[in-house]
Every structure is written in C-alpha cells, then in structure tokens.
C-alpha cells in the first residue's frame, strides 16, 4: 500500500500532470478560445485606456502650454517693486519661466499682432504698461499663480485666457475621475467574466470532480490542473493582447501622429518591456485568482 503522505515527484508524474493540463486545455477548445479572447480584449482595453489616459494628459498640457499669464504693472511702479516681483516669481516653484516685458517691447508686439492697424505714428507716448510674461509648469496651476501675483504690490492687473483655461481644467478633472471609475469597473468586469468562465468549466466537470474525490484525490490535486488552466488562459490572453496592442501601435501610430502633429507622442516615456511584463502579470493573476476561487467553491460541496 502506498503512503499517501510522501509525495515523490518523478518525471512520469510531471508528464502526467502536464498532459492533464494540456488535455483539459485542448478538450473544450471553444471554451478556451472564448476565455482567452475575454482576457485578451479586457487587457487590450486596459492597455488602450492607459494609453489614452496618458495621451490625454499629454495633450491637455500641450494644448495649454502656450497659455501664459500676463501681469500688467502699474504705470507708477518703482524699480524696487519690479525687482521684488521678479524675485517673487523666481522663487515660486510652480512657475517655469517669468520674463519682464518693458512697455516699448509691448508696443512693438501689439503692433506686430495687429499688423499695422494701430497707427503708432499717432502716439506721442507709449500708452502700454510694463508687464511680466509668466509660464507655469502645469496648466492646472495657472489660476492659483495668477491669483497670488495679483496680490503683489505694483501689479495692476493679471490677465490670461481665464475662461478657456478654466473650462479645460474643469473638463480635465471630470475626465480623469470618469477614467478612474471606468478602469475600476473594467477590472471588476474582467474578474467576474473570467471567474465565471472558469466556474462554468468547473461546473461542467462537476461529475468528474466528484468522482476524483471518491477515488481519494485531495483538494489540491484536483485544483492544480484548473489553476494551471486559468494561468494559461490568462497568460495567453495577455500575450494576445500585447500582440494586438503592438500591431495597433504599428498600424495606427503614424495616422495618429498625422492627425495630431503638435503632440509629441513619440516622446512619451513608456518602457515597453516593463509594460508587457505588467500586462502579462495582470493576465496571469486574473486567471489564477479566478480559477482558485471557482474551483474552491465546487470542492466544498
């Protein structure tokens, strides 16, 4: 009589086990294809979402990177006040650059902008004030920075594309929140669907599982092939998703660059190998967890 406590692993057993997994895996091809397809589509959508989210953030900042704050100074501003303001602007970490524009240059710029429609010959003196041109690192800081500058002495008025910037910022915030909600829902959906698939696989084999138990198989012994099946589903699905994403990148990238030439998408810092590893890990984890839970439920009864 064999001693059930001592499990000696030999090559035959491993071969048997792998055969078992491959058999389960290949027997219900249709089922596996749909399970893998589900994982693949979920992960493709996840990948797409991550990309779109990244791209949108990038697009948002690029869309607004021309936004600058103009701080008009009072006509009676003193040089000391100007220095103090320059100092203040240089110290604020949110500010990327601040340039002093003397009124002479401002007039030249106005002239340039309106292309000779202002007849400067008519001016006996420059009517424009001195100003600072300020850019922030991120557009989100613009309103706050503008407000803090407005409080400085010597500053007369602070102007930027208030309305449009505000709206874009609000929109961005809402979209970000919706995005997070969508990704949470997505993970829930993926989990439910894959666990559902494997639960049904187990359900379809409930009679076989009951027999295995009657013949003396332990829970782990019965569980293991299913776990491996889930793992395979997850990994293959993830690899498929990675392939689809890569294909999409190759096929759609040039068209995207063409459609949005001002976005330097190529510059987005993505470590492809890390991303692939992460997506595959997500797939594997989903497969293993889903099958573990699903099989467990049937073993208990």
């Amino acid at each position: 009589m064999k001693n059930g406590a001592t499990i000696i692993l030999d090559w035959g057993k491993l071969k048997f086990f792998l055969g078992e997994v491959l058999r389960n895996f290949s027997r219900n091809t249709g089922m596996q294809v749909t399970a893998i397809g589900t994982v693949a589509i979920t992960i493709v959508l996840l990948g797409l979402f991550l990309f779109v989210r990244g791209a949108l953030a990038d697009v948002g900042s690029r869309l607004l990177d021309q936004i600058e704050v103009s701080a008009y100074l009072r006509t009676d501003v003193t040089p000391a006040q100007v220095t103090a303001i320059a100092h203040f602007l240089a110290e604020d970490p949110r500010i990327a650059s601040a340039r002093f524009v003397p009124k002479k240059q401002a007039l030249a710029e106005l002239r340039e902008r309106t292309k000779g429609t202002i007849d400067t010959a008519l001016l006996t003196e420059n009517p424009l004030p001195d100003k600072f041109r300020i850019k922030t690192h991120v557009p989100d800081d613009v309103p706050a920075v503008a407000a803090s500058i407005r409080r400085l002495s010597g500053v007369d008025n602070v102007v930027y594309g208030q309305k449009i910037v505000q709206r874009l910022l609000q929109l961005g915030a809402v979209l970000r929140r919706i995005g997070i909600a969508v990704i949470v829902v997505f993970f829930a959906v993926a989990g439910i669907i894959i666990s559902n698939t494997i639960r049904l696989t187990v359900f379809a084999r409930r009679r076989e599982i009951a027999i295995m138990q009657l013949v003396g198989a332990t829970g782990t012994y019965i569980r293991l092939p299913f776990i491996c099946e889930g793992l395979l589903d997850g990994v293959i699905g993830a690899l498929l998703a990675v392939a689809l994403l890569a294909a999409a990148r190759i096929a759609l990238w040039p068209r995207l660059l063409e459609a949005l030439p001002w976005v330097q998408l190529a510059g987005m810092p993505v470590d492809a190998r890390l991303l692939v590893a992460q997506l595959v890990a997500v797939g594997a984890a989903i497969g293993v967890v889903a099958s573990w839970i699903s099989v467990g439920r049937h073993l208990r009864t």
Partner: protein
Amino acid sequence: MKSPLPAMISLRGVTLVYPNGVRALDNVNLEIEKGDFVFLVGDSGTGKSSLLRLLYREARSTAGEIVVDGIRVDRLRRKRVPALRRHLGVVFQDFKLLVDKTVWENVAFAMQVTGAHTRDVMRQVPRVLDLVGLSHKSRMYPGELSGGEQQRAAIARALVNNPKILLCDEPTGNLDPANTTEITALLQRINLKGTTVVVATHNQAVVDRMRRRVVRLSDGRITADEERGYYYLGLGQTQVLSG
C-alpha cells in the same frame, strides 16, 4: 462465534437519514473482521449502497459509531477523507468512471492520487486490467465501452491499489455468467490473500455458489446474518444482531 480481534469494519447503532427524510439505515450493528468475505443482500432500496457509502464517507451517519480499519469514519475530518478512501477499493454501482480518461488512465488515476511511483503505475495497471480481461480495451474511453466492460474497468480501478478492504456494489449486474464467475473467483482469490471483501449484490447464483457470510438488509435494518448463507434465508446459522 465472535473473535476477540479488533474488527476491520464495525458499525454500532448506525442510523442514516438522508436530507430528504428517507431513513435508509436504522440502528445497524455489524462487525466484519479482517479477511472476512461478506455478501450484503436485500431488496432494491433497502440500504445496501447506503451502508457502503457510509464506509467511504460519501454519506455521513446521522447517529452511531463507524470504525473502518481503526479509523472513526463518522468523526473523520474532511481533510483526512482522501487518505481513508485510498485505503479502500470501491466498485460503485454506477461505475463512476471519468468519461474523459481512457480505461488505462482511469485505473492509473486511482494509483496516481496516492502519490505512487510512475514505474509502479506502469507495472500495476496492466496487471489489473489483465485480471478483469480488459487489456485489449485499455486505450478506449468509457463511452466506447459496453456496459459490462465499464463494470470491469470499475473493478480494475478498485483493485489497483491492493486495498485492505474491497467494497463492491453490485459488481456483476452487467456481466454475463462467464464473466460473473471469473470476477467472483477473482474476488475470492483476493480475499484469500487477506483482503476484507464486502459485496452488495442481487445475484442469487453468485451468493448460493460461494456459500459465504450473508448479511440481510430489510428496510434499513439487518434482519439476518448467516455464516454460510444462501441468497434466500436458508440453512445457515442465524444470528440476528438487531432489528
């Protein structure tokens, strides 16, 4: 005559009430000693299968004490059940073969779950398949077998681990007389080597030819227990234990 040896199988005041309210066994007392050969007879639905089911813990007794090979089966923790089952060979009334495994794999599986060496599996499986006359069908799936072939596959699986105790539920219901005789002779040989054998059966010819101990069930109670009995209550020394 009662032996002082500890019994291999012992039921004391065992009652089994199924969830649907059916009282399948009612205060059953039964001692089966190591090396015994026992026929369990009785009309359809009197609790033969239920009694066997208690021994390998497919069913759990509602009341009473069950000891199998020194193990208190009625109190066994779930985790220890597989180990119990590996020590028993069971021929199920409805075969319970894995439909997605070949005959060979079905038999091998019962050995593999015990953690047996692959080389032992390779040696033992063909041996038992040969014993039941199924070597030529070893690569077929249960769905490709006749009723009697499936039954013999189930018997081979029960034998493969050389169990101390062999429980057979109607093992010849689908077999022709020749095969029945062969299987019966096989069970007898196995019993001679020391295995305790319990056979639930309706086959009058087998019981009457063998003249071994016959335990008679009727409506969940043991109504007779004869040392060298016949299928119909006959000449053997009667010792009603309870009822």
